[in-house]
């Protein structure tokens, strides 16, 4: 199967222009030949690769009689995963479990592997988006799509969407939200730093608007893949 490549138009910033826009997105689906679905997804310089295997055979110990067991492995560029990666892996797994209509595949396993390619800030969000693309490519039945957006607050309380690694280092708070595509409600959140409840609300609303661009990007990419 040939790989399909797509990019997002010029209205998105090319590195550090407006703080209220997402970095340009680029995605390629069906990049790997042996997996049932795969995607590489990059936001700015940040890049991840995901492969989906399944629904397939399941180990007896992990077999669930009423739904598929979803297994997510996060691979770093170098080194072994520590506690910090475990917490991210859990967010990724639970997010995938929620999105996949697992009850349609009882007694099977769906294995998802995510490989870090390059981390230049807002990496967890990139991973979530990458996994969603890979699941779309694998044609796994899903209840909704998932898109994640990162936003940060600097010391003046200004909001910065999709910060890069340099921008991340001088932020007082960082928030990651994953939304579903039917009602745009929050599936997952992960925050660092401290902030007020009002700031949280503002970030939640801004990220929701930004997530709609990502959903549109998913749609465009799949349309391009299927039209060929």
């Amino acid at each position: 199967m040939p790989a399909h490549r797509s990019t997002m138009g010029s209205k998105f910033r090319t590195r550090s222009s407006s703080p209220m826009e997402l970095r340009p997105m680029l995605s390629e689906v069906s990049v790997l030949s042996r997996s049932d679905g795969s995607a590489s997804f990059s936001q700015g310089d940040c890049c991840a690769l995901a492969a989906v295997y399944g629904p397939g055979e399941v180990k007896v110990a992990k077999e669930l009689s009423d739904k598929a067991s979803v297994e997510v492995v996060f691979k770093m560029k170098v080194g072994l995963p520590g506690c910090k990666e475990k917490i991210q892996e859990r967010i990724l797994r639970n997010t995938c479990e929620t999105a996949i209509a697992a009850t349609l595949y009882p007694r099977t396993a769906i294995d998802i592997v995510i490989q870090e390619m390059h981390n230049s800030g807002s990496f967890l969000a990139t991973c979530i988006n990458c996994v969603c693309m890979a699941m779309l490519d694998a044609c796994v039945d899903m209840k909704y799509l998932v898109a994640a957006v990162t936003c940060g607050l600097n010391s003046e309380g200004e909001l910065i969407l999709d910060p890069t690694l340099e921008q991340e280092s001088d932020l007082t708070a960082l928030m990651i939200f994953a939304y579903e595509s039917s009602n745009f409600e929050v599936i997952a959140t992960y925050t660092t730093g401290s902030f007020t409840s009002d700031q949280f609300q503002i970030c939640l609303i801004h990220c929701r608007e930004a997530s709609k661009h990502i959903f549109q990007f998913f749609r465009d990419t799949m349309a391009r893949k299927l039209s060929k």
Partner: protein
Amino acid sequence: MAADFKTAQPVEYYRKFLEKDVRPDGRELGEIRPTMINIGSISTAEGSALVKLGNTTVLCGVKAEVTNPKSEEPDKGIIVPNVDLPALCSPRFRPGPPSEQAQVVSQFMVEVIQNSGCIDPKDLCIKAGKHVWVLYCDLVCLDYDGNVTDACVLALMAALKNVSLPKVTLNEESGNLETHMQEKWGLNILCQPVATTFAIFDDCIVFADPTDEEENLATGKVTIVTTEEDKICFVHKPGGSPLSDDKLQNCLQRSFIRAREARNLVETTLVNVDR
């Protein structure tokens, strides 16, 4: 009869109760189990606390040692929280290396300390670049009945407030450390984070402080950590059912109230502790 119904159809059993806005153990949806704290229960540790949240029991002991600082942070002390979920506390855990959940809760503690900035690591410095204090905060769950995160955060903060360290000075001439056992000092705790966990049931009903049984039936979970002056320092929702903005806002408001209650509880307990 009720027991049979519960065993056969646990979800349906819960639904029947939740229709009437009450939970099988008699609590309302936003009600948190009775909380009990015992501070300074381990005399051999520098600081300790035992927290009971309903049946969930977590014991925290803080041990202090003097160590060399990290070269990138020469004037900062080190705080190492470690959560142990032994086979003793629940049938879901097996003996052996720490489970994924134990690692996740440990990392959660690390991030709560970092995000809230409750302790200035510079306070733990003895001599920059040479000697700093390292605080090993060991949290052991003795009884696992759901919501260990909240119990762990409470136990950790109570134990840190109880820490009393001897004064240590560096003798410039000999280069040795001198310990003054008579002169004790406590940590300067800048704020006290409190965690509140909510479980989502059937994608729509949200209730606070889930028990083990409720956690198993829940379709999602969200933990909110707040500090004084209604600041939020951690909102952790690792997937699970989507939550609308107003429900999330309700959870935030509930957690502010809970945090105030928990802080008062720790304060009143501390007053009665003879250091």
